[in-house]
Structure formats: structure tokens, C-alpha cells
């Protein structure tokens, strides 16, 4: 299998798993604050991944975590598309217009802000300015998504405008003009749809991955991400932070023989609930990796 199709397959698998898990989350609604069993249990038939330090089922929390990023992530993609694509197309198609210069300046200013700083500052202002933060907790993720989308717009618009500009000067576009095709048809059909589709799809993948990263980072850090007790891969990880040393001591093998390493891992999983550390980490790495693979696939098919 060629590498190119490999990245497409990997990306497609990861994305379909994410979609599947998100759909599954619709059916496994439980009270996120309610403990179901003893804390820090190893995997068993009752709790496939064990329980966390408050005795909540880890698998259920892992599944429910997809609620934190799936729909807000798509919202971010939608916002970036609605703002970035028209902006990029217009800048590339009318490179000499005065409005283009203004738009470029605006994009440069927005693009100069570090993404995380922008997000933290604005979410902080948002949380201070609303009267009852708890009531707005659900909306907070959408504010987060909006900010990530806005911080992503310069990148999308910039790349798209460069692509549109090269095609705008291509001879086949001149030919289409000479034959009397209207501008809108040239722009939408011949430039955007036929020649920039993959570029936009690639940017969508990158944006979604970027939102996932920002959401889990902020949830891990605390105040600005998903408010506990609602789960997120980020805050599951931060909840079991204190476990790290304990798990490490359990996992330390008596010798480097393979069976001793296996034994150490088994101890860490069964007695130290190492899965509470491993599962969210793996989930984040695999999801982002899959999205990047998909982005790479689009990049290699003329993105």
C-alpha cells in the first residue's frame, strides 16, 4: 500500500471511530458526578477500563468526553469556512482592490496573536462578564470554538488567497474569461470547487485537530476548558495526575525480561489504574494523529 493511501485509510478510520463514539455518547447518559463503584479499580467486566479516583466508570467518561469537542469542533470548522473562504477567495480574486489591502492588514493583526493567549484572555473576559458562570458553562465551549476558528481564519484565508491568485492568473482562467464566462462562475466552479477543494478540506482537518488540542489543553489546565464534573480527555488526565508516581513505582519491572515488563504493566493497570492515565493520552494522540494523517492525504491530493 502506498503511503498516500495509507494516510487516507488511517485518517478515515480515526474519523469514523470518533463519529461512532460521539453517537454512542448519545445513549450512555449518566450523571457525571455520581460515583458508580470504588475508586481506582483495575479493568473488570463491570468497568472495562476500570474506575477513576472518584469511583466513576472510566469508559463511560471517555465516551462522554467526545461531547466536549465534537459539535463545538464542527462549529469552529463552520465558522472558519464561513469567514475564511469568502475572505481568502476575495483577496485572491481581486488582489488590487483597496478592500483587499484592508482585509490583509486585518488578517495579519489577528494572525499575530498566539492562539492560546487569545483564547485564554477572551474566555477569561467572557467568564468574568457573565453573571452566572455555571449557567454559561455549556456555551463556554462554543466561545472557545469561535475563538479557535477566528485565530485560524488568517491561515486559511492566506493559503486560499495565494492559491486563488495563482489560478486567477492561469491561462485557462483567461480563456474562460475570453469566452465570456461570468466572473462568479470562474471563481466558484473553476477556481474554488475544481482547484481549491482539497486545500479547504485539509485546513478543516487541521482546524479540528487544533480545536481538539486547545480544548484538551485548557481542560487539563483547569479554569477555562470543560468545567468539571463534565468529562474531557484533558480533565480526566489532570484528575489522575497525582497517580503518576504511584503508577510508575508499580510499573517498574524487577528485571528487563519481557515477562517482567509485562508483569509490571499488569500491576500498574490492575492496582494503580494506569488506564486512567493511558486511555485519555492515547485517545488524544490517536485522534490528532488521525486528523493530521487525513490532512496529509488532502495535501498530497493537490491540497
Amino acid at each position, binding site marked *: 500500500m502506498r503511503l498516500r493511501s495509507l494516510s487516507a485509510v488511517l485518517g478515515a478510520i480515526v474519523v469514523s471511530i470518533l463519529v461512532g463514539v460521539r453517537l454512542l455518547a448519545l445513549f450512555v447518559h449518566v450523571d457525571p458526578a455520581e460515583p458508580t463503584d470504588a475508586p481506582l479499580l483495575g479493568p473488570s467486566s463491570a468497568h472495562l477500563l476500570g474506575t477513576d479516583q472518584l469511583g466513576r466508570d472510566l469508559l463511560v467518561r471517555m465516551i462522554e468526553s467526545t461531547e466536549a469537542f465534537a459539535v463545538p469542533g464542527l462549529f469552529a470548522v463552520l465558522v472558519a469556512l464561513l469567514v475564511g473562504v469568502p475572505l481568502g477567495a476575495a483577496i485572491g480574486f481581486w488582489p488590487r482592490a483597496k478592500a483587499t489591502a484592508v482585509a490583509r492588514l486585518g488578517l495579519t493583526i489577528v494572525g499575530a496573536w498566539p492562539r492560546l493567549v487569545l483564547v485564554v484572555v477572551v474566555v477569561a473576559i467572557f467568564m468574568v462578564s457573565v453573571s452566572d458562570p455555571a449557567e454559561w458553562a455549556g456555551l463556554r465551549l462554543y466561545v472557545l470554538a469561535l475563538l479557535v476558528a477566528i485565530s485560524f481564519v488568517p491561515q486559511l484565508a492566506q493559503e486560499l488567497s495565494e492559491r486563488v491568485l495563482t489560478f486567477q*492568473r492561469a*491561462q485557462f482562467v*483567461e480563456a474562460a474569461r*475570453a*469566452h465570456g*464566462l461570468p466572473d462568479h462562475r470562474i471563481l466558484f466552479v473553476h477556481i474554488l470547487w475544481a482547484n481549491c477543494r482539497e486545500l479547504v478540506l485539509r485546513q478543516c482537518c487541521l482546524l479540528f485537530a487544533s480545536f481538539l488540542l486547545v480544548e484538551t489543553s485548557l481542560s487539563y489546565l483547569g479554569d477555562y476548558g470543560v468545567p468539571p464534573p463534565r468529562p474531557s480527555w484533558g480533565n480526566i488526565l489532570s484528575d489522575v495526575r497525582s497517580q503518576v508516581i504511584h503508577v510508575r513505582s508499580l510499573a517498574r519491572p524487577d528485571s528487563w525480561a519481557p515477562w517482567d515488563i509485562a508483569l509490571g504493566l499488569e500491576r500498574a493497570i490492575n492496582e494503580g489504574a494506569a488506564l486512567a492515565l493511558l486511555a485519555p493520552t492515547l485517545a488524544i494522540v490517536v485522534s490528532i494523529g488521525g486528523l493530521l494523517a487525513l490532512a496529509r492525504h488532502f495535501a498530497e491530493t493537490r491540497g
Partner: protein
Amino acid sequence: MSTPLLRVENLSVGVTDPLDGQEVVVVDDVSFSLGRGEVVALVGESGSGKTVLMRSLLGITSAKPGVMQGRATAWTEEGEAALAPRRPGRRRSLTTVRPGWAGYVFQHPLEALDPYQTVGRQVADSVRVARPRASTAERRERAEHWLAQVALPNPRAVAELHPHELSGGMAQRVAVAVALATEPRFLVADEPTTGLDWSVRREVLDLLARLQDEQGLTLLLITHDFAVVRHMADRVLVLYQGRLVEDGPRSAFFEPGPGEHPYSRELQARVLALEEGRPPPPSLRAPSGPAGASCPYVKRCARMAVGREHDQERCYSEVPPLVPFGDGHRVACFLSRR
């Protein structure tokens, strides 16, 4: 002349030089007219402004912004349409007569086709220009009709191909089909045979001649290839450094005589030398750019050695106007004699 189709009066086109930002006059005070159904060849050496002239008339914007001055009038089915720029720099073009009134076949057909759209869709897009109300199925059918018209075998299969899957000759035919599908009255072909081998060249020319005949097109061929001129043209326009130096019937162009322009003579002598494998006649390569108030050709002119004293002085002090030489023949040379 037959019914007029297009009259161009005193057209000048300036282009900004990308190297030093200076305005360069590429087309200088050109006037000519075309009759309906004529086949006209536009000849001249590289850089003489042939392509710029036709492109500015057709409103094909290049990367460099050009300034266009002068008047052009087109006669369409609906009546007369003046194409004078309202003020200098404001472009209007033949495409504003009606979309698709004029078609253009590009020099490099592969570059003139969208690489990521099938051939059929591109032809169908041109059909949309001519028939905005046609349904998708009608457009597809029409596109296949045009692909068949340009003598492509199995048009239905060709319609599904992408440009990179075509051979040079096929791509040129597709480019012609894309241009014809807008149902133009006026077709400009920019070196339609460059890069094609001799057999395909002949096929493309025969195709253009047949379509011109059937559709009643006015055809303007921009070409270096005198075989094309001899084979097809009714009339020849000669451009030298952006100025029209001769405009006459094909016979007047090819038959040597005292009436023709010395530059036309030189061009033919060069082609003939190439065909017969002789070394080319010696030439004084003219310095580029207009020579101020003199005949632009004066530094290369073979007649300067043999002309009359009185007239030779005028060659250095005045720009020769394009004057009628009888029977639709015009020459811009003080030394030409009836």
C-alpha cells in the same frame, strides 16, 4: 468588401514594462476592419504586438495592466456596438458586445484548459454562455455535438477525459471546441498550429477552414507560419513593432512588386531561405522601441540603399501613414510605388 464585422480605429495599447516600470507602447495607432466571413492572417515577428493587439480587443486581461486607447466598433446581430474606452485606461472589450461573441483559441491548448475538470464539463460551460437557459442534459448533449464537430473520434468518451490525457492535436481540437461552443461570430486563433507535427497541423487547419465555412465565422489567425497564410488567408495584416505596415489581399502579399512593404519582402525572404536551406539574408537587427519620428523600419530597410533621395529623407523624419494602394491594399511606406 462584404458586410463589416469589426472596425478598429487608431488603437494603441500600452503595457507597463515589468523590468523598469516604464510604459511601453506595444500596439501603436492601428486601424483595420474585418468583413463578415473573412479569413485574415496577422503576421509579424515575435514581440511585434500581434497577441497583445488581439487580446486587448477581446479583453483578455494579462498579469500586466494595459492601457487601451482608440475606438473599435463591432456589428452584431443586434446592431452596432461601439467599444471605445470611455476614458484612457478604462477597458472595454469585444466580450462586452455579448458574452461569447468572440472566441479565442490559445497558443498552448493544454494551458488554456482547466487541468482538473473533464473536457466535457469545460465545453458544457461554454455552451452555458451561448445558451444560459439550457438544462444540464441539453448542455452535455450540445458539448458532445461540438466535440464531434471538431472531428474528435468518440466524443462521448473524450468528454470524460481530463486535459492531461489528451495528445497535443486532441487538446488543440478541444480548445477549438471550447471556443466554438459559445457560438462566436468571430474567432481568433493564436498560432493554432505551433507545436503540432505536420500531419496534425494540416488536420487542424482543415478543421478551422471547414468550420469557418460552415459556421460563417470570421477567422483571424495569428501566425508565424507562412504555410498557414498561403493555405487559408484571404487577407494578410503585417505588424511591425506595434504598427500596421501592410494590409492587403493574400495575392498582393505573396507576389513581389514595387507596391509592397519592404518588411513583408524581408519576412518572406527569410521563410524562403529557411525552406530552401539557404543562409538567411543579412539583416540589421533594429534596436527595440520606437525610433521616434521616423519610419519604425528605417534601420533595417533594404530600400534605403536604392530609393530616391527626396523620399529617403522623409523616412527619417516622418512616420509613414497607411495609405491605400488600390483594391483593398494598404501600405505604410514612402518608397512604395504603384
